[in-house]
């Protein structure tokens, strides 16, 4: 019993010493640079047969911080024109910026980019495919309407993680039944076709 009490005392003292010495080398921890946050989404539309590119871009450099994303629309789309669109996702919190597009491409089965266009500005068709033959949406074609005067509308671009690509309409680009989890979503407004 006595030896036990001695042991206990020893334990307590050791613990105190350990605790104190822990405190001495209490160095600040390193920062964490968020790894898979998508800070930046850029959709570049190149007109087939020449003309001015249209770039839709959203950038939110403080992630889930209080600052809202900065959204830019480089200019209007031309009427009755076929554009080839490509989507790029970046994490600019890392230095150098990490290209998340490659990960989305590599895990195409689990990702899909959706384009929701209002006011019949045009139609989007997918050019790429995952291993099951369903679209991913990094490479698209955008056919604008034929209009005499300028038309305004919105284009909402959504990247979904683990959508149900077999649900009705999903592989045609209808997000309604897709489910899954939204990784990034931005509504570009107003987008003009003239």
């Amino acid at each position: 019993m006595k030896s036990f009490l001695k042991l206990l005392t020893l334990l307590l003292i050791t613990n105190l010493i350990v605790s104190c010495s822990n405190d001495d080398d209490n160095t600040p921890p390193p920062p964490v640079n968020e790894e898979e946050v998508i800070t930046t989404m850029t959709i570049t539309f190149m007109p087939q047969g020449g003309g001015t590119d249209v770039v839709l871009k959203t950038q939110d450099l403080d992630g889930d911080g209080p600052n809202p994303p900065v959204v830019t629309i480089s200019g209007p789309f031309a009427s009755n024109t076929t554009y080839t669109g490509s989507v790029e996702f970046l994490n600019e919190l890392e230095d150098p910026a990490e290209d998340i597009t490659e990960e989305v491409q590599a895990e195409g089965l689990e990702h899909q980019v959706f384009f929701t266009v209002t006011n019949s500005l045009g139609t989007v068709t997918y050019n790429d495919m995952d291993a099951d033959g369903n679209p991913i949406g990094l490479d698209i074609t955008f056919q604008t309407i034929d209009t005499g005067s300028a038309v305004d509308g919105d284009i909402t671009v959504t990247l979904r993680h683990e959508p149900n690509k077999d649900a009705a309409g999903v592989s045609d680009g209808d997000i309604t039944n897709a489910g899954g989890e939204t990784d990034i979503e931005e509504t570009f407004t107003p987008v003009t076709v003239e």
Partner: protein
Amino acid sequence: MKHCIATIAVFIIGFSAIGQTCKLNLSGKVQDFHNGEPIVNATIYNKTTDSYTTSDLEGNFNINDLCKGVYQLSISHISCETKVVEIDLQDDSYKVVYLEHHVEELETVNVEGASVSKETDTGQETIIRKDYIDNNSSASLGDVIKQVSGVSSINTGNEIVKPVINGLHSSRIVILNNGVRLENQEWGIEHAPNIDINSANSISVIKGSSALAYSSDAIGGTIILEPKNIAIIDTLFGKTIMGYQSNGRGFNVNSSLAKNFDSGWYLNGNLGYKQNGDLKAPDYYLNNTGAKNLSGSFQSGYKSFEKGFEVYLSYIDSELGILSSSHIGNTADLVNAINSDEPLINEPFSYTINAPKQDVSHLLAKAKGYMRFKSFGKVTFQYDYQNNHRYEFDKRVGNDRDKAAVDLRLQTHSIKGDAKVDKLGRYLINFGVSGRFQDNFANPDTGVKRLIPDYTKYDLGAYFILKANISERLIGDFGVRYDLNHIDAYKYYYKSRWEERGYDDDFSDIIIDEVGIQYLTNPVFTFNNFAISTGLLFDINENHEIKFNYSLSSRPPNPSELFSDGLHHSAARIELGDLRLGKETSNRFGLSYLFNSNKFNITLDSYFNRVNDFIFLKPIGTEETNRGAFPVWEYTKTDANLIGLDANIDYYLNKAISFNVKTSYIHGQNLDEDLPLIDMPSFRLDTAVFYSKKEWNTFNASLNYVFVAEQNRYPDYNFETYIPTTDSYELVDISTPPPAYNLFNFQADMTFDVFKKSKLNVLARVDNIFNTSYREYLNRLRYFADDTGRNITIQLQLNY
């Protein structure tokens, strides 16, 4: 009825005498162990000669004309358990016999069905016994203590179950496992206590903060899990419980073995495993709700009345899946989920646990020693160490796929010295000091912003409790406790968040570095907490009893309330802590009435709890991110009133049939905003009829009906959000509670004698007999899916 144990210290003063047969004299004195006072009129029964004598006014006794040889004496006194001593008499002898007069009831020696006593006299306390724990071997702590009226739970699905006592939970509840305060990152709603109920022999639920020997911050209550009392006899016994649950196709095994020696040494252990796959709501599977749980404990030591020591180890590792459809990306996903009757993911049954999931392990090691001093009392020292490691896995992409999103390691060292002074007759004094050092490490390798920052924390506490048996019918107690908490953290803030919080004005001096878009800060806080608990227990007569208790307690804000800043996925909201928060202070008045007769057992617990600066999460607006708009919830404070009544009524119709009614109602009000408090349990009525027949192998059956009302008192924190895909605004109904529900449950069991000395108990239970679809207000996953449907449990319990 109090039992005493008689422990005898023997000092034989031998005088050598010439061998003389049958003329020997054995004299002695019977004294109180605690204060040395003589015990008058103790019965000394000489078993060998079948003769009696009693002690006189000085406690002396005298037995003449004894032969040489071995004698068995049995010494007893009113309300004391009889103790037998063996004496090998060779000469005239003198013995001082110490009897233990007023005894800590917790130390009572009992072999089976150990008697358990309460921790408090005037507090509102209920004890859950071993047979109930065994019958619910596969359940979580949170589900088991719902047996107590006024106790409910706040859930994230079925596996993450946090106890709620009189409307309060998380950091407001202190859990003690074998005398060790559980330190396991219990600050969030989705962090359940890491504890296995199978190692406990009894669970005590104390409403309010009247257990000051353990803490000053248990504003909600204290839950005390006690292991079995050690009997100082030669014995070896064990128990194995095996069960199967139809819902989730789960199974559980738990086995325990104990060996005690009459020398006072003992050792025992407990090992358990349980697993289940996806649980099922009446209409669909709840995908990814599987769970695995491994737990074990080991206890060994030496026990005697005067001294003893113990080492205790316990380990638990749980892997818990979280309903897949509850993991959402933005507010629009949440609207989809709320508006959909069924979960958006609906797959067949599986045992596989995928992300999102939690993997939490908890190690507890404890060493304790005690000594009793004559004419003083008992002194105990304890050291304990806890290591809690929490991983949370999210749905991630690329190389990070299998990497945890949360990796927190919380280590705690505690020391405690406690003295119980029992020499003062009608007064019992308990005082002590405690110290705690805690270190939280948030692994930066997750590549995800730290949920809880790195910190170190010191606590120092001292307490003094006086219990007075004022008269036969009146007991009073008074306790004070002081705690000092000191927390020293390193926390990174995005500069934008730092400014949005307005910290650049108030806290610019704590910035120690600037890294890219982040500030490194060093917040240091010290809190002084003072607690009082006092009350009276008035035993009017053998039927009626009244208890009154007042307690003052305060709780410093926890790390999550201070430091949270970021997106909370399952809730689709941004949660923000506040460095300016102070401690919350509770003034709680409890009044209880107890009635006991042959036919009735009634307990009515009423309370009024005024909490000043009550910390809670409140929505303050929305923020745009590139996942969409999110509501922002901020930890803020208000003065709050919690008023309630809990009732428990037992009625024994005859030997075979009895009834039980439990009900509780709570009224919680946010006084600053004049709104109901969020997340208050709704009215509940739980009734049961029991039938038992000893002749049929101790047959027991019960039918249980539970009614849970709709919570009509809730704050409306609904808001509207823009849905880009439909180009419209929609209401996000996060506030409206689900409708009332009714559940029926049935249980029956029988016990058979098997082998030579073993008993086999066979139990069958059906929960939610009618497979009712329902959702519970205090389940965070109610937005996404129904609660579980019918579950049939078969359980075998072998005692050997």
